[in-house]
């Protein structure tokens, strides 16, 4: 047999193989330093993602919008005190020196306008705040808390917290610049907290979020790996009970993981928050492969075989199922290449590479290594042989009830499926253990939102933004938006125009409206523009042609569904009611993410179809049986349907990781079906068993092994629940859940289905002639070698 020859070859060439393994792993490991972790949230979107293209177009006109927001909360609950204003003023000055900063907005440098005779005075709201009198501060408070550009954005309504907003201008794909800026800001904050201990500070904004991508994955590495290794030791202790076996398993899984990660560095696969789970997944799959091999080998050793025989026997039994499950799992992960979101493509490719290494190292390198080790089997850990028989009896006896129950559960949970909705929020990516999440939650609760919709509002002609209708309609749009749920603040040029008009009319509230003469508006604009100091121009709100302005709607406490709906409704409202302007599609990270769930789902559909069909074809080829191949689709996709149905009933919030998680789970659960069906067919063909006897045989042969294998995988994926990010938690939870469901289906539902559909006459006619011939040949030559093992 080819496999026996392969094993002999492996054992004969064990030294070269081990050396080659080390060389390969060493070469791959050299790629590890090349792995760069992106801290740019934009990595979630592909370059040609329509909403990203629109966002970039807006930013080309009005400048980048990514920001760092520092929120200051004085313990006395009032930012309008000389000492706190002084601290804000100093921090504002220091903030201008932030690397890659473009603009700094704060309570103190806000450019207030007022009239003094025929002079138009434009000046910072607070200057030399330390020396401001109580009356001056009271006056400033009065102005600030009535200024729409400030309230709920730079200062809270009740004046208890204030923000310094730093707009950044980072070169594209420059992660070091971002880190540099954050380092500078943190040093600045540390100094503030020493000098002004009564102020608590909170940091949020896109730049901090990007930085948290990296911090979250660093935290994941620090927490998930220790848990994973404890788990591996536990698994090894329970199933292997041999120190040398633990050494061998550890070596194999570490080498697999290092090789896969290192090779991904050589191949310049982009790593991000989402690929952070790759290492844990590879470790899990590699443990499953190597434990398989060792469990069989130990069984052989206990039955008196010598080490060489045991290795050969374990190879013979395991190489095909390990190869098969590697292929199906690999297909599942490679299908992630259809994802709209590049990090999932990276995740799929890295894990697929890892699956390959795990296979190679488990069946080639590990036998070579084991042959050197003074390995002895531990005490027998015989689990549940009788239990399996009882399962088989139960499943056969209660087959009708089981099928009815299964159908009911499917229908019930399919209803749950419809309760799922795509709904995302960048801030909710992160667990509450992350500082960014805590700070952002504080900012949302006390000051303003972090989710924004930016609109370009076009007038249709150069200088058109000064037209009476345009400004009036812009004002109406702002009011409409302010009335929408979740809207905290609307930043609009019309508020500047209203204020200027009032100032020029000596502060008369009657003129707190948009000007009614376009020439006048344009000239106010020029006057205001000429009066603004360094860096505080209006170019971030107005384009160079004076044809369009930007409005930014800030929302808090909402998720992407509300944001996407607000954008759609705003456009419908403007189209119907505001002829003076054209509103462009809302853009921004939250809007992009809002569309991502659906876009990713759509793009993954072809990937999912391809994965399901190619895995089914693989199963048909291996089983050499079309009917059972088709039949296998049901138990393979049912776990995903039931799992997501349960999710819909208990949570129902699908992130854009949902469909990728479904495909990953599918690629992994098929193992169960494949193993069970292959043993079943073997019994039917080779032993000419009746259906129920064949089911008993299958239970006996693979029942325990499936339980062991699934337990390892379930535990491994459950480790992801300790991740600091919701995406990894979700992938872990859904895969583990699907595996549990799949195990139950394999034990309880697959046998009744086989009994229902696989009448004895069919199997014989369906079986391919070659299989028949092979079976007959074996019968002539004597009884077929029925391995006394897990598989």
């Amino acid at each position: 047999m080819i496999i026996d020859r392969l094993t002999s070859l492996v054992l004969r060439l064990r030294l070269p193989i081990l050396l080659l393994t080390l060389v390969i792993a060493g070469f791959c490991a050299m790629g590890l330093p090349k792995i760069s972790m992106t801290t740019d949230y934009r990595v979630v979107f592909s370059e040609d993602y329509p909403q990203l293209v629109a966002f970039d177009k807006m930013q080309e006109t009005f400048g980048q919008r990514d920001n760092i927001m520092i929120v200051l909360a004085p313990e006395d609950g009032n930012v309008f005190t000389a000492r706190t204003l002084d601290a804000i003023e100093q921090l504002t000055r220091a903030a201008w020196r932030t690397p890659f900063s473009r603009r700094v907005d704060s309570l103190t440098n806000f450019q207030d306008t007022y009239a003094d005779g025929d002079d138009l005075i434009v000046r910072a709201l607070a200057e030399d705040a330390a020396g401001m009198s109580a009356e001056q501060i009271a006056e400033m408070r009065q102005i600030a808390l009535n200024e729409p550009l400030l309230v709920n954005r730079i200062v809270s309504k009740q004046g208890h917290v204030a923000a310094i907003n730093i707009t950044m201008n980072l070169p594209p794909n420059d992660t070091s610049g971002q880190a540099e800026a954050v380092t500078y800001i943190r040093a600045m904050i540390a100094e503030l907290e020493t000098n002004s201990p009564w102020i608590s500070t909170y940091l949020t904004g896109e730049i901090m979020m990007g930085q948290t991508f990296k911090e979250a994955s660093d935290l994941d590495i620090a927490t998930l790996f220790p848990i994973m290794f404890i788990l591996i030791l536990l698994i090894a202790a329970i199933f292997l009970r041999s120190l040398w076996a633990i050494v061998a398993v550890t070596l194999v899984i570490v080498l697999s993981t290092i090789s896969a990660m290192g090779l991904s560095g050589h191949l310049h696969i982009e790593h991000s928050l989402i690929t952070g789970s790759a290492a844990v997944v590879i470790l899990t799959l590699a443990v499953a492969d190597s434990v398989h091999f060792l469990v069989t080998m130990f069984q052989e050793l206990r039955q008196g075989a010598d080490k060489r025989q045991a290795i050969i026997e374990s190879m013979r039994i395991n190489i095909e199922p390990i190869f098969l499950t590697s292929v199906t799992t690999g297909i599942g992960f490679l299908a992630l290449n259809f994802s709209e979101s590049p990090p999932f493509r990276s995740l799929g490719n890295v894990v697929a590479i890892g699956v390959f290494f795990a296979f190679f190292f488990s069946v080639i390198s590990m036998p070579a290594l084991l042959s050197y080790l003074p390995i002895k089997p531990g005490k027998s850990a015989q689990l549940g042989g009788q239990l399996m028989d009882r399962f088989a009896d139960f499943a056969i006896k209660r087959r009708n009830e089981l099928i009815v129950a299964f159908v009911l559960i499917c229908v019930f949970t399919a209803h749950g499926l419809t309760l799922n909705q795509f709904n995302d929020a960048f801030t909710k990516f992160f667990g509450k253990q992350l500082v960014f999440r805590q700070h952002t939650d504080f900012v949302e609760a006390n000051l303003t939102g972090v989710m924004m919709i930016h609109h370009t509002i076009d007038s249709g002609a150069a200088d058109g933004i000064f037209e009476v209708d345009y400004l009036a309609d812009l004002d109406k749009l702002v009011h409409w938006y302010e009335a929408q749920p979740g809207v905290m603040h609307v930043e609009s040029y019309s508020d500047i125009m209203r204020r200027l008009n009032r100032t020029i009319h000596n502060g008369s509230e009657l003129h707190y409206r948009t000007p009614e003469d376009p020439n006048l508006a344009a000239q106010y604009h020029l006057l205001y523009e000429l009066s603004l100091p360094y860096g505080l121009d209006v170019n971030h709100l107005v384009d160079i042609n004076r044809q369009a302005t930007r409005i930014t709607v800030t929302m808090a406490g909402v998720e992407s569904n509300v944001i996407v709906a607000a954008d759609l409704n705003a456009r419908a409202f403007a189209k119907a009611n505001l002829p003076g302007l054209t509103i462009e599609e809302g853009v921004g990270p939250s809007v992009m993410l809002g569309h991502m769930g659906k876009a990713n789902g759509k793009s993954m559909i072809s990937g999912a179809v391809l994965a399901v069909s190619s895995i089914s074809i693989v199963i048909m080829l291996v089983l050499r049986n079309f009917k059972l191949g088709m039949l296998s689709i049901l138990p393979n996709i049912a776990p995903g349907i039931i799992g997501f149905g349960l999710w819909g009933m208990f949570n129902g919030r699908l992130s854009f990781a949902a469909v990728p998680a479904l495909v990953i789970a599918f690629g992994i659960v098929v193992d169960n079906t494949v193993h069970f069906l292959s043993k079943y067919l073997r019994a039917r063909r080779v032993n000419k068993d009746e259906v129920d006897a064949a089911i008993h045989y299958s239970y006996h042969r693979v029942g325990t092994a499936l339980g062991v294998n699934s337990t390892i995988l379930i535990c491994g994926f459950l480790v992801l629940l300790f991740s600091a990010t919701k995406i990894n938690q979700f992938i872990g939870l859904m895969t583990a859940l699907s595996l549990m469901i799949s195990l139950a289906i394999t034990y309880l539902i697959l046998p009744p289905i086989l009994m229902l559909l696989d009448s004895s006459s069919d199997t014989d006619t369906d079986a391919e002639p070659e299989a028949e011939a092979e079976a007959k040949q074996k019968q002539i030559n004597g009884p077929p070698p029925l391995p006394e093992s897990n598989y």
Partner: protein
Amino acid sequence: MRNNLSNPPFHFLASILLMIPLLVQAETAEQKGRAIFEEIDRRDLNFGDFSSDQEMILRNKSGQESRRIMENTVLEGGNKDINDGDKTLIIFREPKRIRGTALITHAHQQRDDDQWLYLPALGRVKRISGASKAGSFVGSEFSYEDLAPQEVDDYTYEYIGDEIFAEQDCFKVKRVPVDKDSGYTQQFVWVDKSEYRIQKVEFYDRKATLIKILTITSYQQYLDQYWRPGYLSMINQQDGKSTDMIATNYVFRQGLTEADFSENSLRRAR
């Protein structure tokens, strides 16, 4: 030998040789830098007044363009009549919504400049508050600070070295603005040695990173003395925006007086 040394001509030569290092050391980099700008100033003395037409072409990152057209008139200060800085009048011609809007600046050596803007739509003159000259000028990449006539005392200087720029032998000088409201921490200026014209300026923003590069070309000489540029290109290095300025129709010595630059004169400006 002693005789030879005490020989008067030889003695003289020896003392000259000994003094050379002293002479070189006598002028520090700071002094040399300042001297270059004093020479620029000296060569431009007594132009009296001049005017020109200016067209600005603004471009944003996506390549969108926008135009501003204005007339610029300068009255020389610091002479026997006006013991102060230059006076400038800018009248906007385009875009048409701001046609006739006029900006007067009185530069002062010791205090903030005075600025007034006449708004024809309002029929009134508005005074503009002081600290604004570092802000963007009409949405362009130029700030008023970049365009305004420069005084030697506006900066401290440091001569960096000689460099060839645009095939011309140039001095490279670092200058640091004195005004705390300036948008810049430092500038590097390239001045050609033959005619003392500014060829290139690199501007460093408040976080001390390069923000803009100005290159000045198409210089022409007027009245056989005064060089004026025909083309200025300002490119923002941080956000991909740029502004070109084309200056034409230079006219010198029209006999303008302070009255032409008074607040009252603004209403007449069209």
